[in-house]
């Protein structure tokens, strides 16, 4: 047994450069890239590096974060050109010989540094009726077979981080597209056997800004920190609209 024990060797520290795209309209209308050098460890994530900058170098650097382990969805940002959660991106997994580029997610108005206005994103979510619609009044729990439960398991994992929607080239064009996150959350209810509102949601997503705008670019699927098969979910919703039922 002792031999099985994986020894987590003392992780040496190393220095990396972070290039952060900064913007504070109270200071200047200008957007600028600022580089910071920080010392980090092998288990450090990009969030730790950002904290180091904020706590040791420049307190005005602003970003959202809370849980620090990928469950609250606060800290989606573009790291080295791709949307990710800062708290789930280990620095050692990036190419540390190059500066690490950190910038806000794209397609939503930047408020300050890495903070964007999420309201249009939340609005799209609210627009698809993200709640159970069922009229019966059961005494106890509604029954649901494990198979029916499994049907929508993947899309229940969404943490509304917006990594998907803001990685979508269609969303970038005009911000009008409902976006993958809203569709994922619609999927979660459309395929829930207890729900009776599928028709309404399918109708909503049959909009000209709905599922048909998806060009299957898969950026969303690749960006999703929860590993949700977003494009697949969108395809399933498209099929459901064609069939007129889930």
């Amino acid at each position: 047994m002792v031999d099985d024990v994986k020894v987590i060797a003392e992780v040496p520290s190393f220095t990396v450069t972070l290039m952060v795209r900064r913007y504070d309209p109270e200071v200047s209308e200008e957007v600028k890239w600022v580089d910071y050098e920080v010392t980090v460890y092998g288990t450090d994530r990009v969030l730790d590096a950002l904290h180091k900058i904020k706590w040791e170098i420049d307190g005005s650097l602003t970003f959202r974060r809370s849980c620090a382990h990928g469950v609250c969805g606060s800290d989606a940002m573009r790291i080295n050109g791709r949307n990710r959660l800062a708290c789930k991106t280990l620095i050692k997994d990036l190419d540390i010989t190059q500066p690490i580029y950190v910038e806000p997610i794209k397609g939503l108005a930047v408020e300050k540094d890495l903070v964007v206005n999420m309201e249009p994103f939340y609005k799209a979510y609210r627009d698809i009726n993200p709640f159970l619609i069922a009229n019966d009044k059961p005494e106890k729990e509604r029954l649901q077979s494990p198979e029916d439960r499994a049907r929508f398991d993947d899309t229940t994992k969404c943490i509304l981080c917006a990594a998907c929607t803001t990685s979508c080239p269609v969303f970038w064009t005009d911000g009008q597209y409902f976006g993958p996150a809203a569709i994922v959350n619609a999927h979660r209810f459309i395929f829930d056997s207890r729900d009776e509102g599928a028709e309404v949601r399918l109708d909503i997503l049959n909009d000209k800004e709905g599922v048909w705008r998806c060009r299957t670019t898969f950026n969303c699927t690749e960006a999703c920190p929860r590993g949700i098969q977003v494009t697949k979910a969108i395809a399933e919703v498209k099929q459901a609209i064609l069939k007129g039922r889930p």
Partner: protein
Amino acid sequence: MSLNEHGTKTHHHQHDVVIVGAGGAGMRAAIEAGPHLKTAVISKLFPTRSHTGAAQGGMAAALANVEEDSWEWHTFDTVKGGDYLVDQDAAEILAKESVEAVIDLENMGLPFNRTPDGKIDQRRFGGHTRDHGKAPVRRSCYAADRTGHMILQTLYQTCVKLGIEFFNEFYVLDLVMADYNGEKRPSAVVAFELATGDLHVFQGKSIVFATGGFGKIYKTTSNAHTLTGDGVGIIWRKGLPLEDMEFYQFHPTGLAGLGILLSEAARGEGGILRNALGERFMERYAPTIKDLAPRDMVARAMANEVREGRGAGPNKDYVLLDLTHLPPEVIDAKLPDITEFARTYLGVEPYTEPVPVFPTAHYAMGGIPTNVKTEVLSDNDTVVRGLFAAGECACVSVHGANRLGTNSLLDINVFGKRAGRYAVEYAREADFVPVPENAISEVEKLLAIARNATGTEKVAVLRKELQDTMDKNAQVYRTEESLNEALEKIAELRVRYQNIQVQDRGKRFNTDLLEAIELGFLFDLSEVLVMTARERRESRGGHFREDYETRNDEEFMVHSMAYKLDKTPEKPGEDIRVDWKPVTVTNYPAMERKY
């Protein structure tokens, strides 16, 4: 809206029910209140970012869907798990109303895992037993290892459905109390809007606090960066007491070095703790239920293994959670998220390798004292009318000296719902308490201190020193000496806090400023925790004193009640008075806690 001389804009709002916090407890209350009266929910985070979403394992309820169970057994386990410091009337309510709480959630749409015949599935969890401790029972209702996530999402979804009014990214920094008919009553809360730096006064007939925990007083914690205990701190600053603050739970299985939680479900599904020798050491500490013993026992056992040199790893400073004997399908189906944490953050493959774990600061058993109607108390039995608290920030007390796993998600649902119900009941009858002229003055003071902070001390450094000292002196093992050391250190840090530096001078999204203010709350709560821990000269539940190793029911079968005194202390802690409050016992007299 008005502008004051500092150029701060102040907005005024009026709602019948004002709820502070949009975690599980806050939103559950809102769902109860919203359809009846004008309700506002104020939260410093967008609701689904609340830390309830991090909860993994499950929610206890004696549904008896998979095996025989009863609410009495659940009550007994809760009382025993809490080392008999539980108020048994509250525990009975918790256990009785659990079934309804789970069914409510299911009916709102929560996707619980299901049994083959379509009912809500249940699994084992530490400390939950059949027939008063005879054998483990399947009582935890769950949705994979994302139960908290699903609760938070479902509650938010229901709030969207009901059209609840949210004020997100609003930091409540003060509770305004006013004299009303010769009585001190809550009148409003004052919030700081992150996006603009404006102040908002929310007048309410009923004000509900549901601001969650304060794990950030420790360094190694499963809690979010935002869990700084602001709500509890605000109540404290109002001169209201805090109950049982010395009882802080350390969860046995945090990822070593990081504190990120691996749910007890890992052991519920059959995971085994081993020391460096590969020995299943819990067999020695809790022969009957072994790895599923209550958290305080397991955490101490682990700390003890490490202290006695049987820790694993290069520094022998952690133990191992072994899942390798579980079929990968079981791991994937039941524990997908937490195994991913192990892979992402430590690079360990749980299918084949044991995962390094060590206790992590997890849950505050203590907090704002309330009765079973969630009304806040100003002493052992006087109610502050119109003020309510529920969830982790409150102490009813159903968790006593040690909370059982899955009882908190239950707590936030049962007592969150009650808070909503009683807040409405009160607000229907009551009048608005007029908001005093100087309502925002306290917050103005706070902001002024931080805004003008051009000192040399960095907030992050002070916070880290605080957390280090709390980890070192007030964690799983405590002594009079270590606690005094912590008190001294906190006093020193408070002095240095006068000389802090806030670099961000702006109004918009000034998180630099808010971190400075949050640190103030952390100091207050750490100090109360340490003081009450020092005064409790016994060992019980999550509180273990090496200088008083046994439970002492003669003297300490009582809740602690800490009060802030209105004086400048000469010695650290002198401005805190620790008093005691009897425990409500109904059916279960204290017994030795053996598993």
